[in-house]
């Protein structure tokens, strides 16, 4: 929990601090085991991981856990407060069960947090490694294009892209993926820079390995781990950004719920039924927090510089 320099909230990663991590990629398996144990020793990260698993399971088994579907409404029990008989977490403005909507809505919110991060991570990894490996013109073109995307504040670009396209979950996923790619690409590019001068690359070249072999067998595996770490730390933020797009009406469309859209729905009855707004936001907060803990935990476990207290 101490290393400060790669916080998910920073708008630009600081690849310089990541390089040392990639330097020790390709370590013997024994050391990997140590990392897992180290992660497990981080109690906060472990608790967060367990919490997220619980949430994920709950969301997947929403039909089992909830007596209602998210769209079915009790027209006579609208805006029911928490603790109402039959509606543990109350109902919303349309008389729909809050628990059901939170569970089903969590599916979309988690997908929007996780999928773009993974997709952007893979695309960014590929672009960054290619740029760092081949250098030259390709490198210049890729990195200059990414610079342009960096010139926008992340949320602005996501809003602008989603706003120009038709609203929907796919739009939301595409918008977030596009704004994330440069962050991953720059990270992967710097990490590749760190790997290229390594003796084992030299050795592989000397042994007559093709570019493709070197790329896939030696470079990619070593760049992979910082990208994974970064992806984990970003997921928390992306849940927040994704819910922001939904809040603005650029994401899921009714009657489908996600947590951001639920916050927006609740505004109309903020005074009358505050729980409709407060509950989904609280969930976004806790899940984003959990992702951040896990991200920190993984980073600490992978980073030998971390001093444990």
């Amino acid at each position: 929990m101490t290393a400060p320099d790669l916080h998910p909230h920073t708008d630009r990663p600081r690849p310089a601090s990541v390089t040392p991590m990639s330097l020790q990629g390709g370590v013997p398996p024994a050391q990997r085991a140590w990392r897992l144990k180290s992660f497990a020793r981080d109690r906060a990260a472990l608790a967060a991981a367990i919490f997220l698993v619980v949430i994920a399971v709950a969301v997947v088994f929403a039909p089992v856990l909830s007596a209602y579907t998210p769209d079915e409404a009790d027209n006579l029990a609208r805006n029911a407060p928490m603790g109402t008989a039959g509606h543990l977490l109350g109902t919303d403005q349309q008389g729909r069960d809050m628990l059901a909507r939170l569970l089903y809505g969590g599916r979309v919110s988690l997908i929007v947090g996780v999928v773009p991060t993974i997709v952007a991570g893979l695309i960014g990894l590929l672009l960054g490694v290619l740029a760092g490996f081949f250098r030259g013109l390709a490198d210049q073109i890729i990195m200059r294009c990414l610079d342009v995307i960096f010139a926008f504040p992340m949320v602005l670009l996501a809003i602008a892209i989603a706003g120009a396209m038709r609203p929907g979950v796919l739009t939301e996923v595409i918008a977030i993926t596009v704004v994330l790619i440069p962050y991953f690409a720059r990270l992967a590019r710097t990490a590749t820079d760190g790997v290229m001068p390594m003796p084992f690359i030299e050795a592989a070249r000397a042994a007559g390995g093709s570019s493709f072999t070197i790329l896939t067998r030696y470079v990619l595996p070593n760049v992979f781990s910082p990208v994974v770490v970064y992806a984990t730390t970003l997921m928390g933020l992306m849940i927040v950004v994704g819910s922001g797009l939904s809040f603005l009406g650029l994401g899921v469309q009714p009657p489908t719920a996600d947590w951001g859209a639920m916050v927006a729905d609740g505004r109309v009855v903020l005074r009358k039924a505050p729980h409709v707004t407060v509950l989904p936001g609280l969930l976004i907060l806790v899940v984003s927090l959990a992702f951040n803990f896990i991200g920190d935990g993984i980073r600490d476990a992978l980073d030998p510089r971390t001093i444990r207290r």
Partner: protein
Amino acid sequence: MGAFLAKRFLGVLPVIFGVSIVIFLLVQLAPGDTATVLLGPQATEAAKEELRRALGLDRPLAVQYFQWLGRVLTGDFGTSIATQIPVLDLVLPRFVNTLILTAASLLLAIVLGYGIGFFTALRANSLFDRIATSCMLMAGSAPPFWLGLVLVLVFAIDLGWFPVSGMEDFAGDGGTMDLLHHLVLPAVTTALGPAAIIARIVRSGILDVLGRAHVRVARSKGLQRRDLLRRHVILNALPPIVTITGLQLGYLLGGALLTEVVFAWPGLGSLLYDSITARDLPVLQAATLLIALAFVLANIAVDAINAMLDPRLREI
């Protein structure tokens, strides 16, 4: 320093060129036919065809881009589709309002972030440290639009201390106090996230420096605590902190956009939101371009401050 800045500005020109292309293309993503939007649903096909010709919408994309760029460079962003008011007249006052909110939030984030980070570091692992650190952690993970609503619920609706929205009270007598009164909740909402990150970085930065050899030596030499902090700790911990604060700018601007929507703050964010809802593409373009330009300039400013603090960076 002058050479450094000149180099940075030159380096940023192609980026701004790229930004203009992205913003131009953004509108091509938009569904719907511009002619239909402009003429209304009752327009005849012939009238639409004529308008398309007049606007050059039938020309190749590249030609359209350079025509658009030429107009933008002369300050002509067109007129708002929704209200037929020149876009520049709409955007500029909003930009000032966004600057007010962003400046206030930045100030607040720095004061809160550095204050909390500093004191938690000095009392590391105390109860105060744990409570403050957890609170900031929560604030940093909270979605800003939701945080704004919760603050409204508590401080505006329940307690009635602050107004719910807007930048001025039309029924009141205005004045600076009125503005400040309206500014508090939106600024806090926007600032809390970045403040949390700054606090966290400041805390670990100072802890890091406190653990370094020269500080331990100075301490063993019996240096006064205040002098120790001033001479050795703060200055040494500063450069990365400034960088991180600079990095918060993007987050701050992005957060301000959402905050503006929640609080109906008449800035570029709420304008952007309105223009999206109304499919007012010229306004969407102008607002996006302006925010991106401001962001690019702010980043240069941050780099310059860093270079001032650490001359080694100027050589890059």
